[in-house]
């Protein structure tokens, strides 16, 4: 058996089939161990797949031995390899760092179910990333969504329930919209395989239903990706989820929906519908620009660290959409590299929120003052990650902003306006990051503030700090040596926009 050949399917089934074992295990530590091992294995698979596809190759796999379009095909190219790395990496790091936090927030008897759902969420996201079949994407989207609802609803606050219900309603509408779009495309082309659709959609009898399909798919996926103004479910869901879940979901969940949106739009619709690039760009760009500013403003007004980070995500997703809405190779590169860099920064940010909650119970600002003196390493890591969120040179966030500005310059007069918005929103980012830094370093610890909610065991603490330091260091490392992710991103962008030429 040649393992390399089976990499695309192993990527999905390793975590997927580990999930049932989690609920069969009585011990919660054993379930945790299974989850960590499965995430690690998925991460290893994604790394080896990435090393193969980095030079532009594509790994294809026919599930069941049936060739596409009759069977379901899996495809790993540079874009999907990058996504699988983000997903499995985020899951692995969050699980390792989150031991103490899970103990703090979840009752022991629920933990094995929690880890099973976690693995299913990850497997669903991975399944979407490697799928090359429009309906298969829907199935795995639903696995990941249902599992995400479960792990978010595990949050201890009752507001988590309301947040999850909203997420469930909007997520289902989004997925069903996507399903309608796929149905319309199937009606007009008779196939579900993405490559086959791209071939046949040019020859349809009439483009109107396909345009309607494009509309449904774009809106449905934008809903799931929390693109402004369809983001309303997202801040509450991130805010009230268990801290460890926030770190994982914020790093990858919405980005996978964007990944599907980009793949669909750039490979299926744009090459085959005349003028669709224009429609896509001019539909998404205003939303992206408003989203960037709106998210940053609300984040600057937030009074809770997790809420701040969640709203900052609205703004950062705007950057990704903005890059893509230019429909140029440079713009797409900036969008894809920002997916990676934002996952690093936002995942790290939520990890620090988790640490803060571990020591001080909540993440409310009123409760966090003076963290810098008591926990200098943690707050130091936040400064680094905050710089990355702002886009300070020398951090990963700078790379994507730099690429974005470069791409905007290609757009002529409109580009100047875009750059102005980006600069202004970066200033807003400085404000909201500075608010936290000021709180950590320049305000005294309030008298009688609660602290040390749980006894954090030394190994847990060591693992947690190790992961936080690793993420902070990665934010700097990929700011100075962006080589590998940038290579994957530009490879992916040229593949996507190459189809559009």
């Amino acid at each position: 058996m040649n393992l390399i050949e089976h990499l695309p399917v192993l990527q999905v089934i390793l975590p997927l089939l580990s999930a049932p074992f989690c609920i069969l295990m009585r011990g919660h530590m054993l379930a945790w161990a299974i989850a960590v091992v499965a995430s690690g294995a998925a991460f290893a698979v994604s790394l080896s797949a990435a090393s193969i596809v980095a030079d532009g190759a594509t790994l294809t796999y026919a599930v069941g031995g049936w060739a596409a379009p009759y069977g379901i095909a899996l495809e790993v190219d540079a874009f999907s390899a990058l996504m699988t790395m983000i997903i499995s990496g985020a899951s692995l790091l969050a699980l390792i760092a989150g031991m103490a936090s899970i103990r703090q927030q979840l009752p022991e008897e629920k933990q094995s179910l929690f880890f099973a759902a976690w693995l299913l969420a990850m497997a669903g996201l991975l399944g979407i990333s490697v799928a090359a079949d429009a309906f298969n994407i829907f199935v795995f989207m639903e696995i990941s969504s249902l599992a995400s609802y479960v792990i978010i609803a595990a949050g201890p606050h009752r507001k988590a329930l309301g947040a999850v219900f909203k997420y469930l309603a909007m997520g289902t509408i989004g997925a069903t919209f996507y399903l309608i779009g796929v149905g319309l495309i199937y009606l007009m082309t008779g196939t579900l395989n993405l490559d086959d659709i791209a071939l046949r959609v040019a020859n349809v009898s009439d483009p109107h239903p396909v345009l309607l399909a494009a509309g449904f798919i774009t809106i449905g996926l934008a809903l799931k990706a929390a693109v402004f103004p369809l983001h309303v479910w997202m801040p509450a869901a991130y805010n009230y989820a268990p801290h460890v879940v926030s770190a994982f979901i914020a790093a990858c969940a919405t980005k996978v929906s964007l990944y599907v949106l980009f793949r669909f739009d750039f490979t299926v619709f744009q090459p085959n519908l005349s003028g669709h690039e224009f429609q896509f760009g001019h539909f998404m760009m205003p939303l992206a620009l408003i989203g960037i500013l709106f998210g940053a403003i609300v984040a600057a007004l937030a009074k809770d660290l997790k809420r701040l980070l969640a709203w900052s995500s609205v703004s950062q997703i705007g950057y990704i959409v903005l890059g893509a809405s230019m429909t140029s190779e440079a713009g797409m590169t900036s969008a894809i590299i920002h997916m990676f860099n934002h996952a690093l920064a936002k995942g790290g940010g939520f990890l620090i929120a988790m640490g803060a909650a571990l020591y001080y119970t909540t993440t409310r600002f009123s409760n966090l003052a003076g963290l810098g003196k008591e926990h200098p390493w943690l707050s130091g890591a936040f400064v680094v990650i905050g710089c990355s969120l702002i886009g300070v040179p020398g951090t990963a966030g700078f790379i994507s902003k730099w690429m974005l500005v470069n791409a905007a310059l290609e757009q002529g007069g409109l580009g100047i306006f875009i750059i102005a918005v980006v600069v202004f929103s970066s200033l807003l980012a400085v404000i909201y990051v500075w608010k936290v830094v000021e709180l950590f370093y320049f305000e005294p610890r309030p008298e009688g503030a609660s602290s040390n909610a749980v006894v954090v065991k030394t190994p847990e603490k060591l693992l947690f700090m190790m992961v936080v330091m690793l993420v902070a260091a990665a934010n700097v490392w990929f700011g100075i040596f962006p080589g590998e992710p940038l290579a994957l991103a530009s490879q992916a962008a040229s593949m996507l926009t190459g189809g559009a030429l």
Partner: protein
Amino acid sequence: MVEILNIFIMLMLVITALAMVSSRHLFVTVMLSGIFSLLIAASFLLLDAADVALTEAAVGAGISTVLFLGALALMDVEETTRGVRRIRMVSLIVVAVTTIFIVHATFYMPAFGDINAPIHQHVAPWYIQHVPIHMDIPNIVTGILGSYRGYDTLGEVFVVFTAGIGVLSILGDPIKNRQHRPAHNRGLRHYLIPRLVGRMLIPFIILFGLYVQFHGEYSPGGGFQAGALVAAAIILYALLEGEDKALQVIPMRVLYIMMASGALLYGGVGVAALLMGGNFLDYSVLASTPVAGQQWGILLIEMGVGLTVTGVLITIFHAFAARSNL
């Protein structure tokens, strides 16, 4: 003639849907949604989708209604607020605009039933032609579901599995929830006639479930429909004799194992194919000839589907029932 029946059912569907959304009494809404499911199942049958009709009837009209009723037992059945006027206006506009877009696009779609439409020319004819060759089973839907698109069905099983562990995680373990209260729930013990008739029916329902399970290659049916039927039989038992009795017959531990082992059986068949030199879920390598391998593979994965679905549906029922008696 069939066209008239079609139009009649479509009209009924729209009327029922309107009544569902406008009724202020949740109980009425839920019962209407059961009727809606039966109507739409009839419509599926008229449209030649026998498998789908069977599933919709078992799931939409059966299981889904039971779940809604189980949840309603806990809440006020009267809808008290009418909602904000502004939101209603905005949603009306959104809905109207979307309808116009869809109806506009329908004029450019292939006509209903047109055999020259692209979907009947590409991919689908290949399935109809090749299922008898590759697997030698009459039900083409089962062939596609089990083998050509078996990976989707694997996903489907895991969706059900996720729902099972999700409900358990959100509502808590039924056994633990039941410990907090006296065992006053005796089911329908004091209703003599329903109890007797119900007990008589249970074996027949299970028998029919097994028929649907193992006859799925030849006639409409398969693991999912069978799982729903068997689960319905156990749920009926729980309603008649009380959940404590039902939990004695199939304890939670067994349900956990059923949920997990069905999913693992399905995945295991795939992995076995992988180890025997084929691709994941390539059943052809499982037996001496590819056709026999396909038949074995489909039989096994359908059993996996049936196990998981039965386990999950019973678990979900117990989880809701344990809450509503608190």
